[in-house]
C-alpha cells in the first residue's frame, strides 16, 4: 500500500528545469523581441521624417506663364510657402527664408535629386503672371529652382486650405494668413510642416538632407530598416 506521506526525496523537484521547452521558447522569443524593440526605439539607428499625409495635387501657372503641377515637382524634394506679392509692412515675411534656402541648396550634395522651391500666391486676383515675375526677380529667384504659382481663387483655396491645411482669408481688403512652410518628398508625401514665419534654416536643411539620404539608401534590404524606423517613430529630435 502506498504511503500517504510524501518523503523528502520525492518532494525535491527543481522548479525551472520542469518548465516545458515550449514555454522557454515563448519566454525567450518575447524577451528578445522586447530587447530589440527597446534597442531600436532608443538607439534610433535610422532617423526618418514622419509621413504626415499625401501632398495635394495642383495644376497652376508659374511666373513665366507655364504650367506648374504637383506631378512636375514630383521626383524631387519640394519646399512650399504661401504668400503674396503685396505682403509688406506687418505682414509675416516668409520669402526671405525661401531665398536663403535657395542659396543653400545650390551647395547641397543631393546626388542628382532635385530640390525645388514653390511659392504659391494666396492673392491670385492681384498676383498675375507679370506681377509674380517681378516678385521673383526682386528676390533673385533662380527659375530652375524656385517657381511662383498662381491660379484661380478656388484652385488656390483647395491646394493651400484643403491640401496643406493652412488658413488664409481676406477681410476688408486685407489678407490674413498663417505663415507656413511645407516639405514634400519625391513621392509626393508631406514630410514636414513648419507653421511659423521664422523657422530655423538649419532644421529645414537637416530635413532636406534626411529626405535625400532616405531616397538614396532605402533600397534593397535597407528599405526594411527605413520601414522599421517609420514603424517605431524614429523621428529627429
Amino acid at each position, binding site marked *: 500500500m502506498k504511503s500517504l506521506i510524501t518523503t523528502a526525496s520525492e518532494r525535491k523537484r527543481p522548479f525551472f528545469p520542469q518548465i516545458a521547452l515550449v514555454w522557454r521558447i515563448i519566454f525567450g522569443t518575447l524577451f528578445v523581441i*522586447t530587447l530589440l524593440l527597446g534597442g531600436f526605439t532608443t538607439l534610433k539607428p535610422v532617423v526618418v521624417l514622419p509621413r504626415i499625409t499625401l501632398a495635394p495635387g495642383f495644376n497652376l501657372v508659374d511666373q513665366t506663364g507655364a504650367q506648374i503641377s504637383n506631378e512636375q515637382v514630383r521626383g524631387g524634394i519640394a519646399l512650399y510657402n504661401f504668400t503674396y506679392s503685396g505682403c509688406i509692412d506687418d505682414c509675416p515675411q516668409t520669402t526671405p527664408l525661401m531665398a536663403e534656402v535657395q542659396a543653400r541648396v545650390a551647395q547641397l550634395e543631393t546626388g542628382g535629386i532635385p530640390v525645388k522651391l514653390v511659392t504659391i500666391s494666396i492673392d491670385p486676383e492681384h498676383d498675375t503672371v507679370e506681377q509674380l515675375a517681378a516678385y521673383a526677380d526682386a528676390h533673385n529667384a533662380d527659375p530652375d529652382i524656385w517657381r511662383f504659382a498662381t491660379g484661380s481663387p478656388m484652385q488656390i483655396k*483647395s491646394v493651400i486650405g484643403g491640401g496643406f491645411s493652412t488658413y488664409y482669408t481676406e477681410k476688408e481688403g486685407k489678407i490674413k494668413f498663417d505663415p507656413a512652410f511645407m516639405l514634400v518628398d519625391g513621392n509626393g508625401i508631406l514630410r514636414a510642416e513648419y507653421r511659423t514665419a521664422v523657422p530655423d534654416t538649419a532644421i529645414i536643411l537637416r530635413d532636406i538632407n534626411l529626405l535625400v539620404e532616405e531616397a538614396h539608401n532605402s533600397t534593397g534590404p535597407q528599405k526594411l530598416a527605413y520601414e522599421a524606423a517609420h*514603424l*517605431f517613430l524614429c523621428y529627429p529630435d
Partner: protein
Amino acid sequence: MHIDPQERNYIVITIALVVIFATAILVSAFAYDIQVPVPYAEVNPNEVATPGISPWGDPLDERVRELAPNKYEAYILAQTWAFLPNRITIPKGSTITFYVTSKDVQHGFIIADTNINMMVIPGQVSTLTATFDKAGEYHFVCNEYCGVGHQTMFGTIIVEE
C-alpha cells in the same frame, strides 16, 4: 519545494500573461503609437486667450475657420465654466479638426455620437478630427469635473443640411 503540477501550470500561465501584456503595451506604445492623449503642441496658458498672438484669442466667430469647402478647423478654449465658442455651425458632410486647450484647470471635451473624447489640459493642445455626415445637433460637454460650475460647460455643433 514541492508544487502541485496543476498549481505550477497556473503559475506559469500567470507569468506568461504578464509577459504577453507587457510586450503588448510596448508594441502598441512604440510600434502603433497608441498613447494617452499626447500634446499636439504646447501653449502658455496665461497667454493663450490674448488676442493677436493666439488663435484662441481671436474673436469668437473667427475661431471656426473654413480651410476649404467642407473642411474646417475649430479653436475652442475651455475655461471655468464654459467652452468658447459654444455654438458651431457647419454644413453637412464637413470634416472639422478641433484644437482644444484650457486657460485654467483641467477639462474634458466629448462630443456625443462621435468618437471625439479627450482631456483638455492647460498648456497643451488636444486635437482630433471628425466628419459629420448626418445633419442635426451634436452636443459637447466637459466630462472631467472642473469645479462648482462644471454642469454649465456644454455647447452645440449644428450640422446643417
